[in-house]
């Protein structure tokens, strides 16, 4: 039996990116907030100091900062005819753990989605007719527009201090920025990062190809910055240990560098770490949450009553906790009914490797989000008539790292070991380069999440099961993007270009991205969405669910800027509407 703790106003589940933002916003509204986090507290000085943070084996190969699968994992199958099996070690994505969540070890690529992305089904139907959308593709409009989210994108970027160049200021195209982006109300907080050699060459080639290169928006800062909460960030030093690593320089925006020092000083805030929430509790009507139950490291169960529950546990754990708590109707792909587990999507990445002569890229002089990018082939920025697919992605030359265990590129035909391998690795390390395309992934009837019938966690609870595969639309898109990227790379004069379009089936053992989306999506119809436009549960009105869980499908960008914007958008709705009159913000 759980022991019952004194009630609080708000309980926040998970203290990562969205949990930190929501906890801060709720404290500012004068509420008492308890945040419950499964992993340990993490701080720059103690957990990723510059004296040893640059350890590829520990942090990348052995996953030191991530959740241990022994604590919780998921099972995976490509389609419903297969038996799902557990991911015994992480592969295609890396579930975060601990205070700061994915913000600790993200790359800082900080993108806004396109205005058309938020009304995808309507937009595509208007431009190409309903027939352009495959029958089993379950894409939806979000129920919120880009224009509504713009002030909240702005807030997240100014929290992070994001470095970039605007391409569209209040409708006026700006030279040097992304001409395809939605209108911004003002410039980025800091100017773009300085570009290394390969991105500079790529930008030149892209211009020659008639495209519109611009610096990737980066939350690894180009210069010192004091954010909107008074936190001071330093300039990025291009150490090349960004994604998978914590930043020792206070130059990558994370909850640690942008929110937590302000949050912990608030007397109405309390965090409990190493405590795993196992359930959201409901009252007898099933329509109100009464708080959460969690387990501490001694295996002791506690019940934390609260008036308002904010679920911020990352996409997959949000979905699992909703299923486990019996909130919302579980999705059934056979009937296409139900909402929890519906519209699960991912990211369709691909790459082009190029091998050069007489070039030295110093690949280790790198930063998580530095790079030159084109957006000409993203979303609906190009005419899809006759192409046989919808969607797109950004592409270009990032410069994330030159770490040798991970990043050794050899030309095709090179043996995997022996003297020839050794020579090829040595010759190509400074002069080869990996270019990337970052494609959208739309949602389908067959791609879904539910609870696994066989495999359990350490408490005997069913694991989450994911059923996912890439569909023809995404594979065609990936081929198209990869071909366009290779054409530009060819202009840079390499001796050899190797294309790696995404191919099926989806492979869960090879890292792609941690951009898991959907499963409890936002929308305007409770039959096809779990959350209303304010990320409030249709079923339990004192429950709000943050994160990419709410994306009805994924666009051709990294998710976190949109996740952050939605968090501020929801926080504003809670502060200005919900607290005055608790109940559904949208009538059912």
């Amino acid at each position, binding site marked *: 039996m759980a022991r019952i703790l004194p009630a609080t106003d708000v309980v926040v589940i998970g203290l990562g990116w969205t949990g930190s933002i929501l906890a801060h916003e709720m404290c500012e509204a004068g509420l008492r907030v308890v945040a419950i986090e499964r992993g*340990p507290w993490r701080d720059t000085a103690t957990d990723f100091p510059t004296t040893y943070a*640059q350890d590829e084996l520990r942090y990348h190969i052995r996953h030191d900062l991530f959740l241990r699968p022994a604590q919780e994992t998921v099972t995976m199958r490509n389609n419903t005819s297969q038996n799902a099996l557990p*991911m015994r070690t992480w592969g295609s994505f890396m579930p975060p753990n601990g205070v700061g969540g994915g913000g600790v070890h993200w790359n800082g690529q900080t993108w806004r989605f396109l205005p058309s992305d938020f009304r995808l089904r309507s937009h595509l139907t208007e431009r190409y007719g309903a027939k352009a959308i495959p029958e089993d593709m379950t894409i939806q409009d979000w129920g919120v527009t880009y224009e509504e989210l713009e002030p909240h994108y702005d807030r997240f970027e100014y929290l992070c201090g994001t470095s970039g160049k605007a391409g569209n200021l209040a409708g006026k195209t700006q030279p040097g920025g992304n001409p395809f982006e939605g209108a911004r109300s003002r410039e980025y907080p800091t100017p773009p990062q300085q570009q290394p*050699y390969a991105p500079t060459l790529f930008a030149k080639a892209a211009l020659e190809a008639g495209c519109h290169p611009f610096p990737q928006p980066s939350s690894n800062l180009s210069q010192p910055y004091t954010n909107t909460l008074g936190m001071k960030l330093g300039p990025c030093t*291009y150490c090349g240990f960004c994604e998978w690593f914590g930043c020792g320089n206070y130059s990558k925006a994370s909850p640690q560098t942008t929110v937590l020092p302000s949050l912990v000083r608030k007397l109405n805030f309390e965090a409990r770490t*190493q405590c795993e929430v196992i359930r959201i509790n409901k009252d007898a009507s099933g329509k109100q949450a009464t708080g959460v139950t969690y387990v501490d*490291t001694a295996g002791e169960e506690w019940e934390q009553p609260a008036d308002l529950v904010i679920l911020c546990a990352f996409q997959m754990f949000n979905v699992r906790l909703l299923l486990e708590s019996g909130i919302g109707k579980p999705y059934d792909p056979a009937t296409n009914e139900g909402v929890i587990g519906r519209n699960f999507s991912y990211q369709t990445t691909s790459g082009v490797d190029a091998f050069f002569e007489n070039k030295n890229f110093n690949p280790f002089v790198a930063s998580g989000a530095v790079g030159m990018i084109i957006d000409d082939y993203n979303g609906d920025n190009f005419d899809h008539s006759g192409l046989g697919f919808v969607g797109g992605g950004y592409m270009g030359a990032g410069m994330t790292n030159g770490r040798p265990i991970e990043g*050794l590129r050899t030309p095709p035909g090179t043996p995997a070991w022996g003297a020839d391998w050794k020579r090829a690795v040595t010759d190509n390390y*400074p002069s080869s380069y990996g270019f990337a395309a970052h494609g959208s992934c739309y949602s389908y009837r067959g791609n879904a999440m539910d609870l696994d019938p066989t495999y359990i966690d350490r408490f005997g609870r069913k694991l989450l099961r994911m059923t996912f595969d890439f569909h023809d639309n995404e594979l065609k898109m990936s081929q198209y993007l990869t071909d366009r990227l290779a054409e530009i790379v060819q202009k840079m004069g390499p001796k050899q270009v190797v294309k790696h379009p995404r191919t099926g089936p989806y492979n869960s*053992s090879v890292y792609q991205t941690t951009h898991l989306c959907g499963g409890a999506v936002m929308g305007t119809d409770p039959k096809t969405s779990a959350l209303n436009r304010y990320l409030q549960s249709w079923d339990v009105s004192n429950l709000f669910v943050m994160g990419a869980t709410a994306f009805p499908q994924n666009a051709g960008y990294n998710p976190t800027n949109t996740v952050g914007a939605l968090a501020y958008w929801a926080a504003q709705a809670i502060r200005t509407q919900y607290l005055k009159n608790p109940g559904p913000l949208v009538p059912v």
Partner: protein
Amino acid sequence: MALKRRELLSSTIAAVFAVTTAACATTVTGALPWTASAADPPKPVTPGGWLYFTPEEAGVVEVFVDHLIPPDPKTPGARDAGVAVYIDRQLAGPYGSSAGLYMRPPFADGSPQQGAQSALTPAARYRVALAALDQHCRQRFAGKSYRDIPADQQVDLIRQMEKGSLVLANANARAFFEVILKNTQEGFFADPIYGGNRDMVGWKMIGFPGAIYDYRDWVGRHNERYPNPPVGIGGSTI
């Protein structure tokens, strides 16, 4: 109001969350939970004899990894880079026992897309495969161990393992090949504190400067080779 509540909570919770080490549930409020020198630096490998391998196993591994990354006039091979020591220490530690991985049954063979599903830990995989390889060699090469057969035969066996054409009793030769190749490259390129990459030979070979934390001066120096020698977490030489 908030303060009073905090007192209340500390009285209810302190009793249970008394031990506030990193491994235990902890309550944080009012200030960042800092303790002086609370960092968790990596532990350099202990010098001395083999911790996991038997001397016989270690001898085979040294020969095997030296074929995977052979010496050349400029750069030592995996053996002299300490790769067998690296693997030995890894197998004796959490990696070797699959600590932290999901190891609950049932174990079933899945599709390649579902990832590794074996119940064998890396340490057990080495033990079983090395024993099977030894048995195979002694049968085929008149009682000789892998380390005592001619080098071209040693290489040929590795090729067969890579292709999946070598059948070993009680061991999956191809799976063993994959794991030892991966571990060999790790050992050749990981920070020297883990026992391999001795004198940073792997990093010097490709020109990776290691644990440098500030390259700002170098971002704009296009197409110019970075000239400084590598540095490890443990310092400039190990």
